[in-house]
């Protein structure tokens, strides 16, 4: 068991290292062509642009690790963002604490709802989250009655929070760094993380060793939802507007970041470092497109190409592993 675990970890580490080299090469390539790209201010901007993606992708990774998928993540974000905006409009003087708690809890509940359906009723994750995706979107309309919440209706503290600068980085960037650091440490050290990997890698075996795979899925969906909820507030505050269609289709970018970062859709394989690198990879491409003179409309297409390359490569790897296992058995 310990040998298996070690080899799996080293496989993860090897892939992360290779992908880090690739991301660095991309970064250096862009920098050589456009020296201004590596300016500290530009890099801080890049991190700020990628921060929300990083937090969402880490949440999504947990769900994919336990053989799920959360297509409702962007709708959850949009609903909690609207909730935060409406809350701030009604009680503008409450400060940022209640808004954060509100979005964390409501996002967590929305995620837990997905998790309950997947855990207790054993419904297919893709159908459940496809369904909740449109339910949550529709709920935004009911909550806002189709109206926008604009910048002038938001309190100053509400808008300023993610923009506060500390050591040259925005608070939004720092939040992403803290979340990423917590994920890296917890996924390596905590028992619940080991259970999560075990439940995703082989649910049957996990059940026999006393891990409730369904409960692990529930936990993953809840954490993912809570992160999406807080990101909802951050998104609305950063872009200073809330309406029904914010972050429409963003779930695809989030899933793309996970797949690019080496998370296997079959479950059980993936690392926080890889996912953060995947996000940075997307971020670098996105911010270099205007420099190269390619329209921003190409972003989605490039994401598609990169996702397909990533999944084709990982499908090949998995097959290689399986043949080895079969030969040994």
């Amino acid at each position, binding site marked *: 068991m310990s040998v298996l675990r070690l080899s799996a970890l080293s496989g993860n580490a090897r892939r992360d290292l290779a992908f880090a080299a690739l991301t660095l090469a991309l970064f250096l390539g862009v920098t050589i062509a456009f020296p201004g790209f590596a300016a500290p201010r530009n890099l801080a901007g890049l991190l700020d642009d990628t921060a929300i993606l990083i937090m969402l992708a880490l949440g999504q990774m947990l769900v994919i690790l336990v053989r799920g998928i959360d297509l409702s993540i962007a709708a959850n974000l949009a609903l909690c963002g609207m909730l935060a905006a409406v809350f701030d409009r009604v009680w503008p003087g409450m400060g940022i604490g209640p808004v954060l708690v509100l979005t964390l809890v409501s996002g967590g509940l929305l995620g837990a709802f997905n998790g309950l359906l997947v855990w207790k009723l054993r419904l297919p994750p893709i159908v459940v989250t496809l*369904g909740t995706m449109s*339910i949550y979107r529709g709920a935004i309309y009911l909550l806002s009655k189709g109206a926008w919440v604009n910048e002038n209706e938001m309190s100053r503290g509400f808008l300023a929070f993610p923009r506060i600068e500390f050591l040259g980085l925005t608070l939004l960037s720092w939040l992403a760094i803290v979340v990423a650091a917590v994920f890296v440490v917890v996924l390596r050290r905590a028992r619940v993380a080991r259970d999560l990997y075990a439940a995703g890698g082989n649910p049957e075996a996990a059940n026999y060793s006393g891990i409730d795979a369904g409960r692990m899925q529930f936990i993953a969906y809840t954490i993912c939802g809570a992160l999406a909820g807080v990101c909802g507030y951050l998104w609305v505050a950063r872009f200073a507007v809330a309406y029904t269609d914010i972050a429409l289709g963003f779930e695809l970018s989030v899933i793309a970041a996970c797949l690019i970062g080496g998370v296997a859709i079959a479950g059980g394989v993936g690392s926080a470092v890889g996912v953060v690198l995947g996000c940075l990879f997307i971020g670098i491409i996105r911010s270099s497109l205007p420099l190269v003179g390619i329209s921003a409309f190409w972003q989605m297409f490039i994401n598609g190409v990169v996702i397909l390359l990533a999944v084709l490569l990982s499908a090949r790897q998995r097959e290689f592993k399986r043949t080895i296992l079969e030969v040994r058995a």
Partner: protein
Amino acid sequence: MKPASLLRWESMLALVLVLEFILFSAISPYFLSVDTLSDATFNFTERAIVALPLALLIIAGEIDISVAAIIALASVAMGLASAEGMGTGGIAAVGLGTGLLAGCINGALVTIGRVPSIVATIGTMTLFRGAAYAVLGDRVLKNYPESFATFGQGYLVGPVSIELALFALFAISFGVFLHRTRWGRAIFAIGANPVASRFAGVPVNQYRFALFALTGLFSGFAAVLLTSRLGSTRPSIAQGWELEIISMVILGGVSVWGGKGSILGVVLAALVFGLVTFGLGLMNIPGIVMSIFTGTLLILVVAVPALVNRPLGNQR
């Protein structure tokens, strides 16, 4: 046991359909007129035409989330062909060809690339929709020849639109194909147990590839009809349709785990779906609220059998 329970599901759908009729004709005096009902069919025909091959694909244990993106890509291709001065037949051929090609890409990824169909089609969905945006940006293509409008706006006889007639034709063909031929049996077998099917001599991967190609082709077909009906192409065309099309198939009693389903169920589900959309429209309920209904329905349809089956013993 199996045919009986299937029959029950379909008679339930038929009952829902009747209830809808009674409800909507009670709500609106205009509902029960031939013209109104003829208009109502446009709410589902294009989607239902994609739901037919998708039902086969889901019965075979696969899924295609990229159908709406294929529609967008095919529509953009047709818009460009039209801008190049192609005639109506040529434009339609370009739409069908683009759909078929996109379906073949999906099929190749799943069979040759051995990528699970969910991931493969999430990838191609991003790719195809991305290509539509990359080519068009924020432009709109609407220079279609006048005769091109026939497909989506024309009528065959009286109130029967060309779209409706095509859907009926396809529905019967698919029904016969799935339930009356050897190939249909093979599709059920693949969905129930792909490994056993392979040992029984069914060329599983060839079937999978063909089904993806077929779904692509019919998405292209839907693109021709939709583009012809709207008379314009935006990259956001058919946005979110994958949800509605998949909902139709699952509402029709096709098992998400593969191996079970019927074309009759899908057709009834399409009618139920189209009538609900139309009825809510009659009551002035906006489309986004409709999506709450769609989503709830989708979850309920998979949740109810799970709840009912539970006391009978664990499925695993």
